[in-house]
């Protein structure tokens, strides 16, 4: 029986411009099935679009934000969007909405907004850190 490990996954590729969110999700399911632990999903750069609450793809297309959200909720895993990447790209929670006096908030639960310290923590404490980039 193998040693059980902890993982941090980092997604930098956006849904609909890359396969990264889908590859990462299938990998995440497989690592949980193998008994390992997913410490955290960290969204960076274009990857923050995965946390949009307003994505509404056609019903016969995959809905990556919804699928990731359900997976994180089911397994009580933290999903963190980098605050700097998210603010540039228009992904905000209620707190940032208030701070920047914006018209709405659009962060999908259970995603949270936090700084790069969360990623640094992953590199220090998880056994494995894996990156899922765009392919263009």
């Amino acid at each position, binding site marked *: 029986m*193998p*040693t059980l*490990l902890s*993982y941090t996954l980092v997604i930098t590729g956006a849904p609909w411009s890359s*396969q*990264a969110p889908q*590859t990462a999700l*299938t*990998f995440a*399911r*497989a*690592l949980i*099935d*193998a008994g*390992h632990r997913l410490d955290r999903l960290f969204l960076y750069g274009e990857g923050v679009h995965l946390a949009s609450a307003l994505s509404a793809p056609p019903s016969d297309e995959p809905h990556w934000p919804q699928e990731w959200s359900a997976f994180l909720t089911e397994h009580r895993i933290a999903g963190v969007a980098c605050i700097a990447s998210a603010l540039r790209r228009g992904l905000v929670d209620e707190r940032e909405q208030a701070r920047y006096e914006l018209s709405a908030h659009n962060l999908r639960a259970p995603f949270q907004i936090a700084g790069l310290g969360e990623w640094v923590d992953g590199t220090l404490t998880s*056994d*494995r*850190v*894996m*990156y*899922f*980039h765009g*392919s263009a």
Partner: protein
Amino acid sequence: MKQAQDIGTLHILNKAPDHPRFMTCLSSLSDQDTLVLIENAVLALSDADTALPRHTVALEADTEARGLSATVTGAQQISHAQLVELTEHHSRIISW
């Protein structure tokens, strides 16, 4: 600076063969390293211009999507579960 259990590095490559990062990856492998082709990179299996290293495997979901799973001879096809196993055995992983 290498990990104790030195069985080489796991390289996970998702770029198509005509992407500049593809060739950089191939020229950065050591003999004991393992190369995993995922996403667009599995197209290298049908590319007359690419010579793949000995320890190359390809994610089956991606070869199937691209119509390659039945014809592949240059690399073992693996499941996501097997990819997880590879990450268990390699403490050093580079995502290209």
